[in-house]
């Protein structure tokens, strides 16, 4: 079974969201998503400083098999991207919740966090 850490938030498009102490969020893709993709071989990241809308595609992950968009889970500004993934995309398979974070965001509206799924809701969505 896919690993779904209880301390993270989720969206149906298989991104996870971690709320940091300073109110910013870190975003990556879930274990379920990396498992479905297979061996990841290419990652394209958003521009630092870009304003993104919730549900807009802002990054790309490609496995040997297929390309898949990564969506901004919430509206806000990209404040950091994980450049290490560009040279080591396989980390997405190895450590999806740790070393393989994709980008960090400053949220336009912190109240948007209330609309995200918790681990139980996401697990149920994956099984459905």
């Amino acid at each position, binding site marked *: 079974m896919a690993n779904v850490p209880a301390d993270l938030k989720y969206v149906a498009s298989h991104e996870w969201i971690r709320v940091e102490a300073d109110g910013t969020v870190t975003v990556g893709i879930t274990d379920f998503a990396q498992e479905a993709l297979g061996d990841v*071989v*290419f990652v*394209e990241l958003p521009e630092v400083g870009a304003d993104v809308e919730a549900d807009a595609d802002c990054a790309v992950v*490609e496995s*040997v098999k*297929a*390309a898949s968009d990564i969506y901004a889970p919430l509206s806000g500004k990209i404040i950091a991207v994980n450049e290490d993934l560009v040279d080591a995309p396989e980390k997405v398979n190895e450590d999806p919740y740790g070393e393989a974070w994709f980008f960090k965001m400053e949220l336009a509206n912190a109240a948007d966090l209330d609309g995200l799924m918790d681990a139980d809701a996401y697990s149920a969505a994956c099984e459905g």
Partner: protein
Amino acid sequence: MAKRTALYDKHIEANGKMVDFAGWDMPVNYGSQIEEHNAVRTNAGMFDVSHMTIIDVMGSDSTDYLQKLLANDVARLQEKGKALYSGMLNQDGGVIDDLIVYKADGGYRVVVNSATRAKDLEWLQSHRPAFDNLTLTERPELAMVAVQGPNAIARVKQAKPECEVAVDGLKVFQGRPLADWFFARTGYTGEDGLEIMVPEAEVAAFWQALLNVGVQPCGLGARDTLRLEAGMNLYGNDMDESISPLQANMAWTVAWEPADRQFVGRDALEAEKAAGVANKLVGLVLEGRGIMRSHQKVIVEGVGEGEVTSGTFSPTLECSIAMARVPVATGDSCLVDIRGKQIPARVVKLPFVRNGKKVYEG
């Protein structure tokens, strides 16, 4: 419900991730597609290809019949067991399917793609009435396993020692029967190896024996990256009924001689040749970042446009490679439109990889 091969339980046991492929429940990988790919390039891997369709074409008219239906000439098969790769064309010269035909006792054995089975059988049947002494028999009771890689033949002999008499001395593109089994030195990976037809009741034990001597099970994912590196066409991607073999890197499979052999599609191919063939199928190696995928647009400056027919990440070369159909005047470089960005690519002669090594120039 999707059909299952006799090896279905073996795939589940080995944690195969099952997907639908032309109505069959088949493993796409057993964990890591890249590890499976590399096992074939460096050691030995095995594929369940039991979903492919085996048809025995028998009778004294079988040679005339296949000389009519295939663009390649079965008369080239002098020795029993020798194999030939051919396109089967429609009247317009488009490829209905690509197939392998083996010379057998009293006729031929033909192996066609599973995705095209129904239309192939219909086409084969529709040309049958013109021939008196001819039988077509499908052989669904035969499973098929491809064992591929530099150590593949040694591992097969280890797993089934009694097959040595059939396998030893087998030339490339040649097969030999052993009781109800058939061993052919053919494949779809660019490596040495065998494709083995096995009675369904015996195939699970054979698969287990191969596992026991260290042969890596490989799924459809690795099969695709291996064949693409080897520059081998995938029906439905790289050619179909709207594409002639002359535009699919299959000109070498068209037997023009003898000139009076009227195979189906010949007139259309001759007209195409006389008018000048418009496009060619080439290899692309991406020079920038990204992964080429089928249907992406190819731009050849000053010449025109083409299209990627198959694209992937090459585990052996560690960059993106593709096959693309481009105008014949295309030189050694082009641009590929990847999600709106034009990324430069080098045009190379296929294949990319043979026997574990990069073979294209540059």
